[in-house]
């Protein structure tokens, strides 16, 4: 079964791409890796007249360091992120989350920019990026603006990227010194599925083993990926005791606003948030 015919533009620069976006008529979609958009089109849920592919724009698939900040081009594949030496050593949380998306033959072509713009609530990379205080770079015909990741996801499958804009990349600041981090995802059906819920956390223990810096983020726990601020407050300044991890897990389950779908009910999602937040914090507390 073929895709419904569409016109294809393959601009070779960001200015050319945004110019095409500004002038085209009919339903226009940007295509990055296509791993989300193509199935959506095949199912008839998207019927674009035109696609603007970003694959010929040089530099958009670059991953590089700039004075300690990680600069990731929007077209970088999740596989490239997961195997990148500097990402693995200095931002292991991001490498781990990118390497947990779907399967090898999807990660090789799926892009970080595409993952963010698709805005799946149960995205694997999104909770990691939320914990890493990522800044998202967005360009239009006037220039570039920066959106903090906390303001990027605006609703169910919706983002701060306007129809005339292109997400060009993200900037990830250096993680705090001595940070421990981890990402866990719970897949009740198959391991390559999107998670029912995913939990990312990054924390720094002080000399007295108390939690200094703490960031916890959830996927699949609300209409958008979210920071679990009340769970963070429950552990900040405390030792990661059994009781404290329970408090944090309760807080996360309470502040989540999960949706009910074929994968799981609201109650089941809350229960799994409770279980997996606690498991992750316990494992980070024990240093494993």
């Amino acid at each position: 079964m073929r895709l419904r015919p569409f016109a294809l533009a393959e601009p070779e620069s960001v200015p050319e791409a945004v110019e095409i976006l500004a002038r085209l008529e009919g339903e226009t979609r940007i295509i990055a890796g296509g791993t989300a958009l193509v199935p959506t089109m095949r199912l008839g849920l998207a019927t674009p007249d035109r696609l603007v592919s970003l694959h010929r724009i040089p530099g958009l698939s670059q991953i590089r360091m700039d004075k300690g900040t990680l600069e990731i081009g929007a077209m970088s594949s999740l596989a490239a992120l997961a195997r990148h030496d500097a990402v693995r050593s200095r931002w292991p949380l991001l490498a781990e989350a990118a390497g947990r998306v779907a399967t090898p033959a999807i990660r090789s072509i799926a892009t970080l920019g595409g993952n963010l713009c698709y805005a799946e609530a149960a995205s694997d990379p999104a909770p990691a990026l939320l914990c890493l205080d990522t800044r998202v770079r967005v360009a239009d015909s006037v220039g570039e603006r920066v959106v903090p990741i906390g303001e990027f996801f605006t609703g169910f499958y919706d983002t701060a990227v306007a129809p005339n804009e292109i997400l060009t990349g993200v900037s990830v600041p250096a993680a705090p010194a001595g940070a421990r981090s981890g990402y866990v995802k719970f897949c009740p059906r198959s391991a390559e599925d999107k998670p029912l819920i995913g939990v990312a956390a990054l924390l720094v223990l002080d000399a007295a083993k108390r939690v200094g810096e703490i960031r916890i983020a959830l996927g699949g726990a609300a209409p958008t990926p979210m920071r679990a601020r009340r769970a963070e407050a429950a552990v900040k300044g405390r030792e990661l005791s059994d009781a404290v991890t329970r408090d944090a897990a309760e807080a996360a389950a309470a502040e989540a606003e999960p949706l009910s779908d074929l994968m799981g009910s609201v109650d089941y999602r809350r229960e799994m948030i409770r279980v997996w937040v606690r498991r992750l914090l316990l494992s980070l507390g024990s240093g494993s």
Partner: protein
Amino acid sequence: MIALDFTLNARPCRIEVPAHWTVLDLLRDGLALNGTKYGCGEGVCGTCTILLDGEPVRSCLVLASRLRGRTVVTVEGLASDGEPDRLQTAFARAGAVQCGFCTPGMLLSARALLTENPSPTEHDVREALAGNLCRCTGYSKIIEAVLAAAAGR
């Protein structure tokens, strides 16, 4: 129509293709290379897996225009000089093929793994084949075959 130049199974390929065709459409309907199968069309089943610059990708999800200047290997390109790839031999020996519909995707996913990691553990093999669905053999013989090929058995 879009004009494409790329390398297909170690040979140069120049062809014109409609803009809305995927790589799978081009392989099967444009080039009559029917070894790559159309399964789900949504990137879930894995039988359309090919190698693009050595990495496994789902050909049903990739627009054909992405091939420009790149290197593609399909199941037809796995053998060299008439000799089957050792994975193909190992699949036959282990009985890792029943109906055969998933086999092209299994072989190419396994080829990508062994090129990157010549001595994989069973866990590595399972991870590499994740997303390649088989409804006949139950996977055990497929995993055995990949491990046997890696071990030179």
